[in-house]
């Protein structure tokens, strides 16, 4: 098994992107009972960003395949939503917004690989 994390840091391949991770809590204040108040932790990470491959697009539903989709490789942890407690990470690449829709942790290679889909904020 080869540790490829060094490549993920190589400036010849990588770019700096913004990772926005949502946390938050449901209000217990009677003036806003049960309302979700999000908070965002924003960090700069280094990642390789490429357009999604045709094979990766095939994993999406048909109606989703023509959307702006990217592949991201990074040593920084990337998270997709779990539908229960975690909202998906948001990546900001050159001012464009992407929502992480799928993550493959690769602990053997010491990196994360993700697919993210663009949206208009």
């Amino acid at each position, binding site marked *: 098994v080869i540790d490829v994390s060094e490549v993920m840091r190589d400036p010849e391949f990588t770019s700096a992107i913004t990772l926005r991770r949502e946390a*938050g*809590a*449901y*209000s*217990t*204040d*009677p*003036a*806003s*009972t*049960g*309302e*979700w108040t*999000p908070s965002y932790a924003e960090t700069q990470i280094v990642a390789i960003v490429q357009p999604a491959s045709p094979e990766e697009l095939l994993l999406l539903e048909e109606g989703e395949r023509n959307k702006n989709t990217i592949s991201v490789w990074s040593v920084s942890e990337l998270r997709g*939503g*779990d*539908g*229960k*407690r*975690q*909202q998906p990470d948001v990546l900001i690449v050159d001012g464009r917004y992407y929502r992480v829709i799928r993550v493959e942790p690769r602990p053997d290679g010491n990196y994360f690989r993700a697919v993210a889909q663009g949206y208009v904020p």
Partner: protein
Amino acid sequence: VIDQLNLAMRNLLVAVLGAPPATVRPADQTAPAGGQVDEFITVKIMDCQGLGGARDVVSDGRGGFVEEIQQVKRFTASVNFFKTATADPAKRARRSNAAFDRAARLEQLLHLSASIETMQAMGLGLLDASAARNLAALVDANWESRGQIDLTFDVINREALPITTVVSAPVSITVQEGAVDATRNFEVTTP
């Protein structure tokens, strides 16, 4: 108005059911709902209709005159109960009608005298409750207990708007003093 009604309904449910406030939520939030055994309730105001004519009241408030339109509104709140607190050894939600059960008991709980007192303090009147519905479903092959009930209330909605009034006006009075007319100019100002 709708957001205020939704908030009032959530606070009512917290008081009536003794539910933790963070678990009684507005419906359709883009937020994580919790794990398989995290029970929660959502409220959605489905309709809101004015009944009869509106009453127009003009009052002299501290900051000036205020026109207030009062109208009875009838609205329907859809209350959804989600999930059960019981899990199997693999931490998957057990098959359960817990949420449906909570929906089915809600109308009776609203008829408790303590509940009526709470509703009166909020200005809410319970008009009707639908049949409780069992909406349990398999989600990703996992059991999700769900129950739903529509509650219809009336409430008096007040829309108030300050009325622009004359702040000051010049007054000119001419009086006859003997053979001479005398004119006096002054200005009156509202308090």
